[in-house]
């Protein structure tokens, strides 16, 4: 079973490890003769636990776990103000919306970072190295820009009825930490972060590619 899943860091697919002694104690709690061995019960328990996780992963949807009060910015919001918004709210990313509240992009810390140097830098240390050796990447370079310039677009979004397991897969495959939830017209409904998924009851990431 385990090769079908990739786990979120704090989650485990395995049920709590119950011992034979636990099972025997439980069987004593239930009065009357139970026609099952502790070994069979353990097998049943572990299998049922896995089925429950799979069911939850299938049935819990984006709208069940999303944060509804989303902090977002407009495409013409100056970059400096976007940075303030993110800093003040202690968040590492914001959706960018147009006048009709439709999601047009997402800005994350990474987008700021990479705007400081050349666009082809792929890691934090590469940007640092580039800045230290060339000195042409002062924050000044994005001072005049607005959200629309530095955002990643088009944004990866999901509809409200997408399952949490599918979202887990999307986050992992795209190496992103949050995904805006939109309605059929593209309007922002909420946002699902990795933390939302972890809190939603430790649902395993079902790999959406070849293994299914």
């Amino acid at each position, binding site marked *: 079973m385990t090769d079908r899943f990739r786990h979120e860091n704090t989650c485990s697919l395995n049920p709590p490890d119950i011992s*034979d002694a636990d099972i025997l104690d439980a069987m*004593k709690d239930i*009065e*009357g*003769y*139970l*026609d099952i*061995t*502790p070994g069979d019960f353990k097998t049943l328990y572990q299998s049922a636990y896995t089925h429950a996780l799979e069911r939850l992963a299938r049935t819990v949807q984006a709208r069940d776990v999303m944060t509804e009060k989303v902090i977002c910015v407009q495409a013409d919001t100056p970059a400096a103000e976007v940075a303030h918004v993110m800093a003040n709210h202690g968040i590492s990313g914001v959706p960018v919306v147009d006048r009709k509240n439709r999601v047009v992009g997402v800005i994350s810390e990474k987008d700021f970072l990479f705007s400081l140097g050349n666009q082809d830098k792929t890691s934090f240390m590469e940007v640092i190295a580039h800045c230290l050796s060339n000195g042409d990447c002062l924050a000044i370079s994005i001072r005049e820009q607005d959200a629309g310039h530095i955002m990643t677009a088009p944004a990866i979004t999901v509809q409200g009825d997408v399952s949490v397991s599918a979202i887990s897969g999307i986050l992992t495959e795209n190496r992103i930490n949050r995904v805006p939830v939109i309605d059929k017209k593209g309007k922002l409904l909420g946002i699902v972060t990795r933390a939302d998924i972890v809190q939603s009851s430790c649902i395993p990431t079902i790999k959406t590619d070849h293994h299914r």
Partner: protein
Amino acid sequence: MDYFNKMRGTTQSPPGVNFPEIIWSWIGAFAGIAAVSYSHYTFFAQTDMAMIIGSFGASAVLLYGAIKSPLAQPRNLMGGHILSAIIGVCAYKLFSGQMWLASSVAVATAIAVMHATRTLHPPGGATSLIAVIGSQKIHSLGFFYVVMPVGLGALIMLVVALLVNNIPEKRRYPEFWF
């Protein structure tokens, strides 16, 4: 090696039951077997008919001693006994010239049919076997063996199980009917 390793077992025996469970098992079995055997010896002992057969002793273990077991539920009790009785009578009628064959066909087929119909009830195996190896009195019953002693006897034991097993606060029967 794997084959022999399997013979070592993997787990341990379930815990024993408490004293009240033992007492209620005794009371249930006493009442259930009393009901069928009293009517047998009072009304049918001198006739060609019977009310009790050996497999009811096995049913009593389940019905009054392991009342949560799926094997002890009404569907299994009635279905298992009645289907096995039919199979046993058929086996005797078809293979009575070869008693070893009639016996083994009866029990093996009874198990298969009980499995297929989700009515597995271990005493059913005995019910089918008794139809073959039983007395002349049993043989002469023909298919009436299915109705009585088997069907009626099992029904009486079921009624007693319903009455007795639900007296203690912490016991209940059945888990399911069908």
